[in-house]
């Protein structure tokens, strides 16, 4: 079974984001970019499926500028077999991302798609579900663990009240949560090997998808600032202050 893993190049999770003074966006100039952490978990899970003999090929796809090919390389160094870069310098909304991925799924015919539950830049948490709906496939979102059987997947999901287990027929889409696995670091020999793995380039137009944004972003602004408060001398002073504030 072929497994498709969509990955996104995003601002590194350790970077403190700065909003531009003109409110047109956030400052991404000279900022460290990395693979979306949830997508790393997706790559790891797919590679483990291959190592266990349950997947035959792991195909990595990313949508973004030329530099997104570096993100694909990272995934190939972790164990992906080949990559597809859908190249665009435009901002692509989640619905358009899902449509591009659907076109790729139609062409590649994977039996399973694994991707991150959300990207840590737009925090939308939409693409996996949208892709599943466009394909008419079932989904297992926010995956905590996975057992793959013939023709079905048993997925335990992280939900607000705890854990829920569902069984879905394959083909299906799964989105990852944090506890699914701990992604590996790529070894140097694997990084070298990844350089030789093929990455095919396409454009959204090649796939027949219109990525014109539907929404108009009016501004990107700073959230309300919290002032750092005071250090208190001890527990009695703390409780006095909380009492005076009326919160206990």
């Amino acid at each position: 079974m072929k497994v498709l893993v969509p990955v996104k190049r995003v601002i590194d999770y350790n970077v403190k984001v700065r909003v531009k003074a003109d409110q047109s966006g956030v400052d991404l100039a000279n900022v460290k970019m990395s693979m979306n952490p949830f997508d790393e978990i997706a790559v790891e899970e797919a590679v483990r499926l291959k190592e266990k003999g349950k997947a035959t090929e792991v195909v990595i796809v990313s949508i973004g500028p030329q530099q997104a090919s570096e993100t694909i390389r990272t995934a190939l160094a972790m164990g992906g077999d080949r990559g597809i870069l859908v190249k665009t310098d435009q901002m692509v909304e989640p619905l358009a991302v899902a449509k591009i991925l659907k076109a790729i799924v139609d062409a590649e015919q994977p039996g399973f798609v694994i991707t991150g539950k959300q990207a840590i830049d737009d925090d939308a948490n939409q693409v996996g579900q949208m892709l599943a709906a466009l394909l008419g496939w079932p989904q297992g979102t926010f995956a905590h663990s996975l057992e793959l059987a013939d023709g079905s997947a048993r997925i335990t999901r992280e939900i607000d009240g705890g854990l829920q287990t569902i069984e879905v027929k394959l083909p299906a889409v799964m989105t990852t949560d944090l506890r699914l696995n701990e992604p590996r670091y790529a070894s140097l020999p694997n990084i070298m090997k990844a350089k030789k793995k093929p990455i095919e380039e396409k454009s959204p137009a090649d796939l027949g998808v219109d990525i014109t944004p539907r929404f108009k972003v009016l501004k990107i602004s700073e959230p309300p600032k919290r002032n750092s408060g005071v250090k208190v001398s001890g527990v009695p002073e703390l409780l006095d202050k909380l009492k005076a504030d009326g919160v206990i």
Partner: protein
Amino acid sequence: MASLVIAEHDNASLKDATHKTVTAAAQVSTPVHVLVAGENCAAVAEAAARIAGVEKVLLADAPSYARQLAEPMEALLLSITDKYDAILAPATTTGKNILPRVAARLDVGQISEILKVISPDTFERPIYAGNAIETLRAPEGKKVITIRITAFAAAGEGGRATIEQIVAASDAGHSKFAGEALSKSERPELTSAKVVISGGRGLGSAENFKLLDSIADKLHAAVGASRAAVDAGYVPNDYQVGQTGKAVAPDLYIAVGISGAIQHLAGMKDSRKIVAINKDEEAPIFQVADYGLVGDLFKIIPELDEELSKRGYK
């Protein structure tokens, strides 16, 4: 036209998240209808009918909706969305699971986790872990929206909506429920508690994490955790507060042994008052804390517990 709110419930009781979503819905399009989809959930529909500002409750009572799985819920919603220009759900794991499917099938974008309705087509939502706020305008047509429940006040009681039974939509049956392991707690829910006490890696073990229980009992607090504490296995995943866990905004948030990564701050910095207890005075959590207490939490927590007892908190 009208807006449709997907009720959050467990077949027995209606969750407060629904009341908050009704508040948001009323700002987008009126009248407001509520969909209660579940199994043997008539009592939930009756509770939804009592929410002020709700005109009609649609009740879809069938075994296929018992767990509100995404696929049958998508089919059900698509059978009724014609009559609505806005479909809203709370940004809970249920709402987040279902709604993007509906948006995709309607060929519209979804607006995730809104903080504010500026006008019926313009919304504010957090991006980059809440380090930036995006104001965006939706195009003409249907709007599919999830709301951050801590950002909206709950609609009150006193409504007298009619309840209309609707028939189940057919579903391909590609998914089925196979079990659950829910955390049992007598404490208030994390997302609606007035006081939250959260622990981080500094607690050191699952055993030590229980030190927070006695204080939580005295303050009627919910107990939360940082990702580090969940990853380390001290507590289950549903305790996680943060960018990709739960967003909370209680009157009082007490962070114990939590350093304050950006991702954690994203989930709690809208709290009214924040207390940080940490031995590292450089920890970023102190930058957002109203009151900081630097020291060994294993000394401070018992002292806090004792002092609360002395002051009559039981």
